């Protein structure tokens, strides 16, 4: 994994660099939007961590350049601007995730991993969560080296959950990604899919499990 950090505060940049290098992969630091743009065009990055207040403008102005890249790197915006409007505008402009300053180091790493997971699923059709790997192209899941054979609906449930692993997927959203508009959804069909899937994961010794969040939905977590 190669990470680009766009941060003008040198101390913070070096902390971020060492954090990323100890947990995810090699990191390069650039201080301005201009330098970062040049680097993006010259090298391939998997993840970009952008600060907003940079010497030559708002870090969000990098987002249009990023959208044109193939493959497009995953984007995580660091923001000290905590006005909800700022956060919404970051996500609207195409950032995959935002982390407010100050953050817990573990929180940043977890968010970066989550973004990369979604990113690799979209870009390569493959992603990993704990000892569970998911292949979108072959429509299969594996725990360690063992193939987990899953019916179509359960695979769809797992895909939706692994995309947002570590976060709650609301029931409505899960139903929308598993069923067509025409499908008749009975009230507890989703629950039975989830409980069968949960049982299969447990039996395969998977260290990822599905938690029920009462009144909201489900969440894939690592035990």
């Amino acid at each position, binding site marked *: 994994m190669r990470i680009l950090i766009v941060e003008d505060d040198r101390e913070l940049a070096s902390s971020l660099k060492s954090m990323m290098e100890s947990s995810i992969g090699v990191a390069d630091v650039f201080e301005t939007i201009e330098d970062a743009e040049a680097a993006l065009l010259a090298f391939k990055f998997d993840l970009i961590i952008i600060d907003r207040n940079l010497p030559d403008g708002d870090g969000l102005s990098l987002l249009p350049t990023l959208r044109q890249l193939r493959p497009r790197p995953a984007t995580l915006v660091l923001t000290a601007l905590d*006005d909800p409007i700022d956060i919404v505008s970051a996500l609207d402009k195409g950032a995959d995730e935002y982390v407010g300053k100050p953050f817990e*180091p573990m929180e940043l790493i977890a968010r970066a991993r989550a973004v990369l997971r979604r990113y690799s699923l979209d870009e390569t059709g493959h992603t990993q969560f704990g000892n569970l790997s998911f292949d979108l192209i072959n429509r299969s899941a594996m725990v360690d080296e063992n193939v987990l054979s899953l019916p179509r609906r359960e695979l769809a449930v797992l895909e939706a959950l692994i995309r947002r692993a570590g976060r709650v997927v609301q029931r409505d959203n899960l139903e929308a990604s598993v069923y067509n508009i025409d499908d008749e959804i009975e009230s507890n069909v989703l629950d039975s899919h989830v409980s069968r899937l949960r049982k299969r994961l447990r039996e395969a010794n998977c260290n990822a499990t599905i938690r029920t969040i009462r009144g*909201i939905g489900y969440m894939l977590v690592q035990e």
Partner: protein
Amino acid sequence: MKRRRSIAFPVASILILGMALIMVISTVLTIAGFVLTDTQGRQKLALESVAGLLQKGAGYDHEGKLSVQVNGVISERILGIFEAQTDFWYLFSDGTQSITHGTVPESVRSIVSALPREVFASDFYYTNDLKRYLGLRKLDQNNPDRVVVIGGVSLTNTQTILLALWGTEGLYPLLSAVLAATATIAVVAVKRTIATPVGRVVNSAEQIDGLPGGRRISDHDTPIELKPMVAAFNTALSRIDHAFEAQRNFLASASHELRTPLTKLRLKLDLVQDPGVRDVLVRDTARLASIVTTSLQLARLSGQSLTFAAIDLAAMTRTIVAEHVPSAMKQGMEIELKAPEERVAISGSEPAIRVALDNLIVNAMRHAQGTEMLTVEVLEARTVRVTDHGPGIPAAERENMLRPFVRGNTAADGTGMGLAIVAQIMTAHGGSVDLADAPGGGLVVSLAFPSVRADRP
């Protein structure tokens, strides 16, 4: 006492002054006319005037006796002038009763009775003590039985003019009536004429929301006189926008300037070897960060007016609670949401309510550390209820908790502003915050929103 200034008042005054000027001009014209009229004409005019006064003042007292009662200062004054003349006389008769004043000359009495009723008015000359006088006999047009005969008058020119101006058929009573009508119309119509365009400007001013770069008052259809006011108002609004923008920029840069060093501080703390020291410092940093967040939230909320929109309280609460589940899980706490599937419609500012719910949930998680369950309920009656099983807040301190910088639990790293912000947001929504004991121990915070009103979309 403060004077209430009205535009209608001076305008009406000008109109009235104009009328007064017309009266002066008419007086001058009357005098000019008088100068050009012959003596007989003037004398006749005076007699007709008094005859009219007497006819008007005729009536019966409670015993049914005929009497002449002249009312009004001016009429009394005019009659006074006549009565002061030694030879002045009049005879007033209704056919059965009669009243006389002064000495009615014998020669005249016979003429009066000789004249037929069909002759309504006739003037005649007679002599008395070798002096020549003008006499007048006049019948009441509405009641021909009432006849007044009058004579023995020799008035000065001034007295005659006064009579022409003030007499019953004189100029002033007519002009006074016109003046009164003008004044009434002026007060009512001028007020309305001014109030209508002003009202239009007021209406469009009332529709201005507090948003930066928001609406301006339209000067379309505004009268020229009001355009400078509308322009000045719009300039003031632009200035407010600039001030608002400046405040927003200040908050953004304050936020950045405070958070970046805090982030560095937090990251460096991981280098501290002693876990005991490190944990304390990490907690203090978190508290400092929380103070920065809530202070800025408070500043942001007090600096802007909220824009209201239709919100589904149930869906919004579900999304917000979902965001807090991972961190709750990290501290071994489960969050349960109880919300109806149906929409719970309220009118409010989504960013502000989000801040309120975030604060409420973070507070509950912080104060109920070590407990296992946090319950968030959305009731159909537009209420969100957050129940924790922590130590709770003693009833006596609850009121204080809704004021800034008061902290309930000194052990926890709260900032003491969370609930104050929640209270402020709820006040802005016309709703309320209620703190109560949870069954089985803990705290229940309820946010109640008012029902959706038609005037707040």
